[in-house]
């Protein structure tokens, strides 16, 4: 396992799993368990390298498990379990001009999609958004595979000022012939992105990451409303038509265990303080 830290809360893990690297396609995800007592955490595949046999995950330390992993997953360690690739690969169809939108952590998983579209011969415009300049990552990776890259920051410290929706509007004003848009990020951002494209009738796919356990369609915990249907994100998705997704329902369901999550986080922070463990951050290892 290799690792890179993008900020205090965001880190990248490169996990060696040659078979999975061979099978992975853009849009798919994995489920990891960091230890035997751990949760099963769904994480979108941010990149894969078939030659090196690695799967790249970009993780934001938000809850107990992801923070714990931030401490425990260092170079040379291994995960208790990682299963995947799961979900339907994104259909990188016939689109000739594509807008790839990534917000925050969603910047990572949008990358293989942008690259995939490029390989299929599309003109690819990437819009990647961050809170501030210091959080920007992978800009050069996007530049190497996209025809245009628009960076947005909330405070204007890099690229244009504003959210990704501003960048999208800019791109659409420059190109009237965009025929597909893919947006990955927090639910609010994906909803915003879908609203930008809706008046133009641009097909917009979003990647959903609801609460999951097994990731194989068995528990139904990840069900989402798309149009008038109930779908399981793990096997029917995770990509869905952004104009059809019921984002209110998604966000309500994401908050399902917020009380337990907070309690677990609090308990964990206290135990860490008691053990006098200070999280190590900002130390790139690769």
């Amino acid at each position: 396992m290799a690792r890179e830290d993008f900020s205090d809360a965001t880190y990248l893990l490169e996990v060696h799993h040659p078979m999975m690297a061979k099978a992975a396609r853009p849009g798919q995800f994995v489920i990891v368990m960091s230890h035997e007592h751990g949760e099963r955490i769904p994480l979108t595949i941010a990149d894969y390298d078939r030659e090196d046999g690695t799967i790249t995950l970009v993780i934001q330390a938000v809850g107990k498990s992801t923070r714990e992993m931030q401490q425990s997953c260092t170079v040379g360690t291994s995960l208790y379990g990682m299963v995947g690739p799961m979900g339907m690969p994104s259909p990188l169809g016939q689109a000739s001009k594509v807008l790839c939108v990534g917000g925050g952590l969603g910047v990572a998983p949008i990358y293989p999609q942008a690259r995939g579209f490029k390989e299929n011969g599309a003109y690819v415009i990437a819009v990647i958004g961050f809170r501030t300049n210091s959080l920007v990552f992978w800009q050069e990776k996007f530049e190497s595979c996209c025809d245009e890259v628009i960076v947005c920051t909330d405070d204007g410290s890099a690229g244009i000022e504003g959210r990704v929706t501003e960048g999208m509007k800019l791109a659409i004003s420059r190109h009237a012939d965009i025929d597909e848009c893919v947006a990955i990020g927090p639910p609010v951002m994906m909803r915003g992105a879908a609203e930008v494209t809706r008046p133009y009738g641009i097909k917009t796919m979003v990647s959903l990451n609801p609460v999951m356990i097994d990731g194989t369609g068995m528990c139904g915990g990840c069900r989402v409303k798309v149009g008038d249907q109930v779908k399981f994100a793990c096997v029917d998705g995770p990509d869905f038509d952004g104009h059809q997704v019921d984002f209110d329902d998604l966000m309500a369901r994401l908050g399902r265990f917020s009380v337990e999550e907070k309690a677990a986080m609090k308990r964990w922070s206290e135990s860490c303080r008691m053990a006098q463990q200070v999280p190590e951050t900002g130390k790139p290892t690769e």
Partner: protein
Amino acid sequence: MARKKTIRTIPQERTPVAEQDPGERVKNFAEVSHGYSTEEALLESERCLMCPEQPCVAGCPVSVNIPDFIQRLSDKDYRGAYDVITATNLLPAVCGRVCPQETQCEGVCTVGDTLEPVAVGRLERFIGDMAITAGWASIPYIEPSPFRVGIVGAGPAGMACAADMAKAGCEVTVFEAFHESGGVLRYGIPDFRLPNEVIDAEMGNLEKLGVNFECNTLVGRLFTIEQMIDELGFDTVFIGTGAGYPSMLGVPGDSLNGVLSANELLTRCNLMHAKEFPDYDTPMPPAKRVAVVGAGNTAMDAMRVCLRLGADEVYCVYRRSRAEAPARAEEVHHAEQEGVRFKWLTNPVEVLDDGEGGVGGIRCVQMELGEPDDSGRRRPIPVAGSEHDIDIDLVVVAIGTNANPIIGQTSRLALNKWGYIETDEQLATSMPGVFAGGDIVTGAATVIEAMGAGRKAARRMKHYLGIHDVDTPYFVEGAETLFGIDLRERNFVRVRVPESSV
């Protein structure tokens, strides 16, 4: 045997089994039934008439030679009894606990025509438990064969198939998507009905047969069925992935946060140990008043799990009557003892919002039974104007499952219109060398039926590979002889592969 037993000479009463007191056991996850003591088992074994018809053997999906094992038990040849059972069923301690015996062996028992049937399940469990304590394992001499067999899914169907193929000398690898093997035995059936130690012990016997387990492997996505045959070098593949795509209610309020499938509840509790939260990281939805919709074994498990997790009130909401409930009689009885409140002939029409995205109650309608439907059961019909609300904060949906789509999405296998894998009578799929069985073929059924399917497929797989199968001669329905060879002769072998690679 000194004298022939008759229905009048055998012990008339079925030997009762000791159980944890209902008031006590709802507070723990320890096993409900203590199982027979040696004396009790010997007493009960006296009740078998050793009738020549042996209807129980035909009633068993894996054809355990029941009178034979009971005779040996009765003779205190416990090890012999164990060997008889494990000749056809590798998991006696599991099956003795979870089989619906009342519709299988015990349902057709000759003694049962007059008295209570022989408690075959409890006797099987007694032998299974004794084997675990004593560390017995039935490992026959295995003649190696040069074949590699891939099994998809480490549940009951896959394990039964794996055992038979391993005994035939094949190199068997079982792939499992979860991080632990066992399938429904592990994630579905709770500890108080089937302790994890029992699963571990009996699964351990598979490993002793040389079966390899590869967990965290999602077949279809990590590699496809086609790749298993074409690239990974498996000579034949068995698919036993289970049904597992839960049906939801399809009524308003279905996606509220307090509505979850029984699969999710049970997986959280059993596989992910949410009952030990926060020692384990996976949480459980809080529940004080629960409605479980459905009345199958899964529903009973879900109710009893909720009680043990501290729910004050648990309702069973079922649209038909008790007589139609698909659960084992014993499970309904246990649930009742533990305080589950049954709402028979009641159907949910809406899950009510508590105003914060959670469940505030469930609106139901009273049903009455009309004419029999396709399933032969009387069709429930709503009674007009009978809507009423039940005050609850969690809804667990246990109304069955649909076909899991992953194998269908990722292979060219033919599926039927419901998405289950299409097979012939002998469980061969549309793809040469690929066989399937269990819930992914039949839809949701029982552990033992899945095991029966796994064994049936194994027989066909051996024929496909040309392995000499001494247990079951190759036999084609309607064809008495082929090229002048009597197919029932036990020396008919289709293909012999050079054994140089062994």
